[in-house]
Each structure stands twice: as structure tokens, then as C-alpha cells.
């Protein structure tokens, strides 16, 4: 009888430990998941800022770059594509398809933007325009912020993915359907070794 009671006690205790373990693992995954989603919202803010700046930039440049219509239009198209891709990614950060889309859209956009910046170098009148210069400065600064925020996001995703894959939390992850999250990588065609943005 006493052993029976002890047995119940031990079962309850064990059950409790298992419960604690599961709840703890689950909560850790939720926390990490929230963390990378939060990190994406940081990118989102900067990207939106950049998407707002680009039309102004193009508008200012239009007067000087009469013969470069194609580049300007390419910038606007790439900007619009990136904006829609970002809206989708912001809805569901970490989702593989959405992240791939925003990655390629952003790569394309930074490609045409660097072409535009290179073009601007060739037009002294445009370089003398203060509005243009301050806009370019702002775009560059925003780009720095984006890459910094992107690094934070990628770190958060890495932590989450590692947690998701190692034992024992992978059991919990597969039970409660925690999917893998996708990194946000931008390939820059002209410079393979992108500057490391780090303090």
C-alpha cells in the first residue's frame, strides 16, 4: 500500500518533470520564433524607409538623366517588386518562399541602385544638386542600417534553427509544427566579399 502510494507520487513527479520539460522547450522555441520575427520588423522599417526614398531620388534625377530613362525605369520596377515582396515577407517572416522572393528582389534592387549611383558620378550637374546628394546619403545610410538589421535577423534565425534541430527540442519542434526559418541573404553581383557590418 505504501509502495503503491510512493508509486503514485513518483508517477506524479515524473509527469510533472516531463510536463515542465515540454512546456519549457515549447516556450523557448516560441521565444526564439518571436525574436526573429521581431528582428524582421526592424528590417521592414528600414526597407520601407528606403522604398519611400527611392521615388524621390528618381524624381530628382529625372531632370538630369534624360538619356538614362531605361535605368530609371528599371529602378522603379525593381523598387515596386521589392516593395510587394517585402509586404509579403513582413506578413510571414521566415517563410521560405517569401524570404527567397524578398532576397532576390532586394538583390535586383541593390544591383540597379548601384548602377544608378555609378551613373550619377558621370553627371557633375547632378552631383552638384544638394537634394540629390542628401537623398543619396540617406539611401546609403538606410542601406547600412538594413544590412545591420539583416545581420541581426540572420543571427536570430540561426539560433532558432539550431534550437529547432538539436535534440531534445527537435522532438518538441516536430510535435508542435515549428517549421524552419529562412535566412535573408543578398547577393551583390559586383562585390562578392560584402563589407562586414559589425561593430
Amino acid at each position, binding site marked *: 500500500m505504501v509502495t503503491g502510494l510512493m508509486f503514485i*507520487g513518483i508517477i506524479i513527479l515524473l509527469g510533472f518533470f516531463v510536463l*515542465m520539460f515540454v512546456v519549457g522547450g515549447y516556450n523557448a522555441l516560441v521565444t526564439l520564433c518571436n525574436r526573429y520575427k521581431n528582428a524582421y520588423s526592424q528590417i521592414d522599417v528600414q526597407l*520601407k524607409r528606403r522604398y519611400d526614398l527611392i521615388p524621390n531620388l528618381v524624381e530628382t534625377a529625372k531632370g538630369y538623366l534624360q538619356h538614362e530613362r531605361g535605368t530609371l525605369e528599371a529602378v522603379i520596377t525593381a523598387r515596386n517588386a521589392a516593395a510587394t515582396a517585402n509586404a509579403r515577407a513582413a506578413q510571414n517572416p521566415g517563410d521560405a518562399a517569401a524570404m527567397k522572393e524578398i532576397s532576390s528582389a532586394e538583390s535586383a534592387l541593390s544591383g540597379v541602385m548601384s548602377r544608378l549611383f555609378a551613373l550619377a558620378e558621370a553627371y557633375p550637374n547632378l552631383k552638384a544638386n544638394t537634394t540629390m546628394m542628401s537623398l543619396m546619403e540617406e539611401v546609403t545610410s538606410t542601406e547600412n542600417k538594413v544590412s545591420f538589421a539583416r545581420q541581426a535577423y540572420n543571427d536570430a534565425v540561426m539560433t532558432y534553427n539550431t534550437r529547432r534541430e538539436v535534440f531534445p527540442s527537435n522532438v518538441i519542434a516536430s510535435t508542435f509544427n515549428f517549421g524552419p526559418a529562412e535566412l535573408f541573404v543578398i547577393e551583390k553581383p559586383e562585390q562578392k566579399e560584402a563589407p562586414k*557590418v559589425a561593430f
Partner: protein
Amino acid sequence: MDFFNCQDKARRNTKLLVFYFVLAVLSLVLAVNAAVLLILTGFGNYGLMIWNSNPVSSANELSLPWSLAELLFCVTIGTLVVILIGSVFKTLQLAGGGSAVAELLDGRLVNSNTTDADERKLLNVVEEMSIASGVPVPQVYVLDGETGINAFAAGHSASDAAIGVTRGCMKMLSRDELQGVIAHEFSHILNGDMRLNLRLIGLVFGILCLTVIGRILIRARRGKFPLPLIGLALIIIGWAGVFFGRLIQAAVSRQREALADASAVQFTRNPAGLSGALKKILIYGSRIDSPHAEEASHLFFANGLDNSLFATHPLLTERIRALRPSLDGKFPRVIQQPTPAISPASEAPQPPHSPQIPRFPVVQTGRDRFTPPFIAEHAVVANVGQATRQHLRYAVDFHQAIPPVLQVASRDPLGAGALVCAFLLANDPSTRQKQLENLDCATSDAIREEIMRIWHAIQGMPQQARIPLVDLALPALRRLSPQQFEQFRATTEKLVASKAETDLFVYMLRKIVVRHLERNFFPQQRPITQFYALRPLAPDCGALLSAAAYAGQRNITEAYAAFAQGAESLNRAAHCEIPWLPPDQCDLSRVDAALARLSQAVPQIKKNVLSACAQTVADDDVIQEGEAELLRTIADALDCPVPPFVQSQETSAPVAPEA
């Protein structure tokens, strides 16, 4: 009540809480034992006949003389273990501090560079209040799912505090009303209530655990033992747990809430704002729908649950009446300084979703916007944790006067990091060049560009703007990834190390940033109160006072005189001599160790040390610009938030020199 008394009271309340808790646990154990006895002996045979196919043998087994004491012992241990595990589990879950609580309640972190008008307003109000009271800007969360008007503050200390606001609160309150609510929450941060509240969540959860187990057992229908019956008993007993839990919550919470209301009015000097918010709650309600509302009900601004028997808060009408004796808006003199009718909006409830943002009246004093910080030294200690309307007014002015470049920078992680680095740069060009060269290997051009850009922007800022700006930058810095934080920490360390002279203030500034952030990135490092007497801390006091004396005075005899001034009162309190350290022994690492130990002392000791520092720094009866900021950093390192030094009638009264 002064800050240190409040802190002490919070600590005493913790003891009271533990006492209640032990009482509750004892009664629970007794109740469980009584129930077990009742089931097994009283109507045991009858009960077992129902549940067993073979009642006779069971009854025989039961009536066997196996020791009753043994059984009861097992039951007692089992109950204790369950309560303990429950409490420990919940406490561990909340180890992350305020953000853990906010996420438990489904809060969404508000981005520090948000563009949403309502969120911006909320952040601005919180930032102003932080500047006014001298604590780092807490994380701000919005509970999107909650439409009632409610808010909470949670965390272990000011550095991991979070303020949560329901969607209804953000949307429906005017700026003045929101300010009242936020001021109320800040007084929880300053009074040390939050820590108590977090512990309360953990303990109450342990008590509630029995109900949870009862619910599980009542579904188990097999086995030799009357499990469902035990389950039912556990649920009934568990209700006793709920009863005690509520009782504890109510006992601890009610008076703190009244105190927080009073402090909020003291901060804002605008009872109309807070009472307007309370009136709106009267109309729209303050219900919290989250399933975790019960555990956290004592954290909230107003009752989050419907039941009134164990209300965690005083009645709304009582709270309003305390703020404004007559409910019809005619209130002659609650406070000596009635504000002009700046918010007619608070008289009538507005329809929800009105996006109007009434501006706080900016009082132009005719002086420089950053008021010169002359302050009498006796006022330093009295000011700790006591923001007043003057501070708030200063904060609002300050907030608006920050150049846009810095405002933008302080809200995004890259810019905020660069801002802190820029403060660490030396004024002397060659040293600065050397500092930047030292960074070369680890940092990219983008960062260095950003640092220099911000460095140019801060050149026009007065010195006393440094601490508020750093406080503002903290929420953005919390969003660095752990790897980025490591790099940031290494960078700041390099900058401080390569700065030629040992600048105590710069060192402390860096220390404060890293300390506040460390608690965010590594939640397990939490200071525990270890020192209850001044005597073992005498060498540390000596180091700190000596360093403070050297920081203010160039020649050594003057420094010693300043040191003696401060050490005098401490000598009396410690009943021993505070040692004076020569300059070569009193380097930054020594000060660092001293501060680390001093921060683990009880509030009253901190009060003595802080007032000794004030006396050392204010050797000449008046604290000058740079010295005032040094004092604020020391106070911050000791977890005693000092509001910015604003000249006012009360504080500029002539000081009687110490005998």
C-alpha cells in the same frame, strides 16, 4: 515617501509575502492531509466499494496497521514538492524579466522606430517619462488582442523592465490620460514593486498547481485507488489555493496601487489626466481576456478580472474620488498647484479611434532649453526616484530639442550603437584618430562613417544631454543580436581603453550601457542583496570616494579635502575609518569592483554612499555641470535613478554648509 524608504518597504513587503505564502502552504498541506484522512478512513470503505470490484480485500488492506503517519508524511511531501515545482517552474519561466511577462500576455514589442502615429505617441510619452525620472527607457509592448483599457509594468529591475499597454489604452486615451497611466506604471518601476510582483506570480502559480493536478486526476478513471475522488478533493483544496493566492495578491497589491496613483500625480501634477483615464475605464472597462490574466492580475493598472471579492485594485470610483474629490469636474484643491485646464478632452469620453494628439504645453522658461544643472548637494539624495512636474517639463522640452539626426539614430540599432561609441570618442583630434585606428580590424567603414557622422552631430550638445540620450538609445540597442552585442561591447571597451586619460565619467557611461544591456542578453546574471552593513564595504567606499575626488580636483591636497568631506558621514555610519587610496591604486578596475559590490547592498547603505559621493563631488557646495553627470552615473550604477538636475525653487535654496 522617499525612494530608499519605498525600496525598503518593498523588501519588507517581500518578507510579508513569504510569510503569507508559508501560511498558505501550511494550510494547503493541512487541508490535503485532512482530505486524505477523510477519504481513506471516514467513508473509505464505502467509497472503495464503489470503485473496486473486490472491496473486502481492499478494505482489509486499508485497515491493516501500516502507519498512518507514513501515509500522511508522503502526502505532505508530495504536496510540498508540487507547490515547489510549480513555483520554481513559473519563476524560471519569468526569469527573462518584463519582456517574458509581456510575451506571456501576448504582447507585441513596439519597434523603437515605428511610424504608426499611436505607437509613436505612446513611445514619446514613455521616453519623456524616462528622461524625467532618469531610468533607461523600458521595452514597450502593445497587447493587440485586448480592447479594454489597461496597462502594466513588469521586470526585475529598471534595466529589464517592460511596460505593456492594451490596444484600447493606446487608442482611446488622450495624451494627458496616457501620460497619467504611464506615470503610474513608472512609479511601480521606481518603487521596486515590479520585482515583488514577479515573485508573486511565481508563488501564486505554485499554489494554483494543485487545481491543475486535480483536473488531471479527475479524468483518470482506472486503478485501485479512488483517483477521481482525490482529484475532486484536490480541486476543492485547490480552490483554497486560489483563495489564498487572491488574498495575497489583493493584500500586496491594493495599497501599492493607491501609492502609485499618488506618485503619478506627483510626477505629472495633472490629476485630470489620470482621473480622465480612470473615468474612461469606468465606461469602457479594463477586462483582460488573456488566459494568463489571472496569474498577472495584480500587475495591471486596473482590475483585469471581473470578480470584485478579491479585487487587486481599489474601486475605480474611489480612485477617481481620491484624485478629484467631486466627480463632476469641479475640484478645488487636491494639489496646491492646480494645472490650468489644458485638457478639456478629459471631461467627456471621446469616441474610440479619434487620432487627436493634444500636445503637452511647452513651458518656455526663457532660459536655455537645457537648463543649467546647478543643484544643492543635499537635494541629490532627496531627488532619487522622485520625478516632479519640473523634470517632466524639462524632459518634454529636451525630447523636442534633440536634433533629428540624433533622434533617428537613437531609434535604430546601428545608429544607437554608433551614438554610444561617439560619446566615448576623445575631444583631442590625435587621440580620436588613434581610437578610430584601433577599431580598424574589427569594424567596417559603414560603422566608422556612422560614428563620425553622429560625433559631428553631438558636438553642439551640452554635456548633460549625454545620459538622457544614452537612456533613449537603450531600447534600440536591446535589439542587437547576441553576436552583435558582443562586438559592440568589445568595440566600446577598445574605445575606452585607447582613450588616453582615465575619464571616470566616460568609463561609467560605457559601464552603464553594458550593464543594462547585459541583463537583457544574459538574464541569469542578477545581483542579489548581500550586504546589510556598511563595515565590510568600507574599502569599496574608499575607492569610490577617492576616484570621485580625483575626478573633480586636479591637485592631491584638494582631492583629499573633498574625500574627507564625503568620508566623514560614512565613518560615523560604518564605525570605522574609510581608507583613502592614492591615485595609483585607484584605477578603473578597482572602482569597477567597488561598484559591483556596492550595488549589492541594501537601499539604506546605498543612500549613505550616494550622499557621501554627493558631498565629495560638491566640495564647493555647488555641483558643477560635469560633476552632476558623474553623480548621476554613479547613482545609476547603484540602481538609484536620479532625475536630471533641474533648477527649481526648492532645490536652489541656500545650503547650510556641513559642520
